[in-house]
């Protein structure tokens, strides 16, 4: 690697430059601003940890964190379940499998904002009219209560991201050596045992990636939240990202919102690091 000095850095420069300009530098700026009374134009006073103390007493922010956590837990489970399920389905020898892969992946290509509005129509109008016609109370009034709002967000996220997670699982499923499965078959393992003892441990690394992806993604849901429920009713389905944006731009408390963002960053970082650490330990090497 003699040329590493020059071409290595040459190719890296654009990435490093843009990454530091739009991610790293603003991150530190934001961190500093969270200790001031910055209003978006100028900061006049250094407040110390006052913003963070206020955060501690902020019931709305706490409820947003709690709601986000709930959404994250449920959708991580649901997403990995669906993703692995779909991947198993489309790796079977079927004529339609590549068509199905495309179909399952498609929702991921539509922007979250649009999806939110489409699902809003489905939840409110389609569910509503089906419910009215067949007298199913549970299908009417969706998104008008906290509970239905919660499930609305979970369903939307699962539907959108399942195809993406499926792709990751497919990559791992297809890399499992056929001879292992064959050997197990000869030894008399039935299909469930083959899945439990061979397939499952071998796709463990995919869990790490998928869980990390789904977890951090569900924590950062914003556009789906905005277009589907807009936090309603009464901000009870407001997730952390949305709460931060609202505090900053609607209530005009830039520095305070920044301190929320710092706390949020710390929470997500801790969760993600712990999770990657444990999953890595569990991986099986061939």
């Amino acid at each position, binding site marked *: 690697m003699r*040329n590493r000095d020059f*071409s290595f850095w*040459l190719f890296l420069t*654009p990435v490093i430059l843009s990454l530091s300009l739009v991610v790293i530098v603003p991150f530190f700026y934001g961190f500093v601003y969270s200790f001031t009374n910055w*209003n*978006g*134009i100028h900061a006049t006073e250094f407040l110390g940890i006052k913003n963070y103390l206020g955060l501690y007493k902020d019931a709305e922010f706490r409820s947003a964190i709690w709601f986000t956590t709930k959404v994250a837990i449920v959708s991580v489970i649901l997403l990995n379940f669906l993703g692995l399920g779909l991947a198993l389905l489309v790796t079977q020898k079927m004529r339609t499998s590549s068509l199905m892969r495309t179909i399952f992946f498609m929702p991921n290509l539509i922007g979250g904002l649009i999806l939110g509005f489409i699902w809003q129509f489905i939840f*409110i109008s389609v569910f509503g009219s089906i419910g009215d016609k067949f007298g199913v109370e549970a299908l*009417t*009034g*969706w*998104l*008008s*209560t906290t509970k239905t709002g919660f499930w609305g967000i979970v369903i939307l996220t699962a539907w959108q991201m399942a195809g993406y997670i499926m792709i*990751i699982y497919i*990559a*791992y499923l297809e*890399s*499992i*050596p056929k001879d292992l499965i064959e050997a197990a078959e000869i030894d008399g393992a039935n299909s469930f045992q083959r899945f439990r003892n061979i397939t499952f441990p*071998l*796709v463990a*690394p*995919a869990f*790490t*990636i998928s869980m*990390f*992806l789904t977890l951090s993604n569900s924590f950062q849901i914003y556009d789906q939240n905005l277009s589907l429920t*807009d*936090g*309603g*009713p*009464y*901000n*009870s389905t407001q997730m952390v990202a949305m709460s931060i944006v*609202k*505090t900053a*731009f*609607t*209530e*005009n*408390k830039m520095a305070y919102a920044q301190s929320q963002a710092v706390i949020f960053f710390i929470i997500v970082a801790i969760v993600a690091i712990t999770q*990657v650490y444990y999953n*890595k330990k569990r*991986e099986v*090497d*061939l």
Partner: protein
Amino acid sequence: MQPLARKIKVTFWPLLFFKTFMQPFALDEKERSTMKKKSLASIVSMFLVAILVLAGCSSSNEGGSSGKSSKDQVTIDIFQFKVEVKDELENLVKVYEKENPDVKINVKTVGGGNDYGASLKAAFSSGDEPAIFNIGGPSDVEEHRAHLADLSDTDSAGIAFEGTLDTVTDGEEILGLPFNQEGYGFVYNTRIFEEAGVNPEDIKTFEDLEKAVTKIDSQKEDLGLEAVIALAGKEKWVMGNHLANIFFATEFDNSSLVAYESDTIAFEKSNELKRHLDLENKYSAQPVLSLDYSQQVEELFSLERVAMIQQGNWIYNSVYDMDPDLAENGIDLLPIPVEGYEGKIPAGVPMYWAVNSNKDDEVVEASKAFLDWMYTSDTGKTAVLEDFKFVPAYEGYDAEKIADPLSQTIYEYASAGNTIAGWVYNGSPAGWSQEVLGAGMQKYLSGDVEWDDMIDNAREKWEAERK
């Protein structure tokens, strides 16, 4: 063969895709070493090209900055928020440029209330300051106070309706010129009212309203209605801003400035507000809490499935898109009956034009001249009425020429002095009216909180913000 899983293990996931896709293109050692020599030259040349492109970008930026560009030409940068009139404003600017060859005007439009505020802040902190921009309530004035030019010597300021300038007046100085006026009340379907035998002019008090609503409700089936009213409970601004506003405006002498300086809010009419909200909720299409603006206006009102909605003149274009005939001939506006305000419509100025005092005097004067021209010259007036479809906030416009019946009604009320000047909720702590009061009213409608507790909580939040 090493399995793929082993090789990539836990890498950053984009790498996973990259590696998978790039596998076929990978080079072996021999190829690689010959490549190295060849490609060094090409890398260097690519680098040079990249630098040239970047340099090209930055130099083209310089041409766009404001100030004096060539000789005596003055350049005015307008940064405005009303997306609906973007094209119309640009056309008007072209006419002005033709009449005044020494003035060059660039219009930049960024839509939506929130986005605009953030973009404007970004423009100012990056140094790329516009000459003319928009400001809203008193909090905007305070934030931008340092660079707001005095506009009291403009003609437009002289003919603005009384009260419309209150929020932008600081001592002798006038810091903004009203964009337009908007007003709200109950927008009703004239045909349904007639068929139900309800005379909108008789609705003066809450009791009258209740009577009218129950009367229509009893004939719901015959009239083909789903409900009498559609209350957009999902939109916090419909309840927290508009509805609540008329019930607490008196506490602050109808002035958002007084509200802006007030330490507390008494909510003297909180019971009347509750009574009114209950009425709207009871006779509304359900479920109220997921009913949004588009369902309210387009699905329910424009398709004549409800008789009335609490909205303002801005719904005209949406109704027009659904049913032009209904929009032109079948709707009108009626004041929300509140004690002490019988027969008055709350009309407010959503945004003001402001001129940046940091600019050269020349630019400031030219900016003022343009704004004056827009609101006082015949060409400008026609454009404001017919192209922008604004309800002017200025005297001396021909009400007949106003395009839609809702705006016409509002301009007539305004000319007769029958408007409550100012939307007082603009003076509440930032975000309070929607995020605290609006969300609180949603919570009340969902049955999760008692009305009085909700009001107390809203008052506490207001006081906490004003400490």
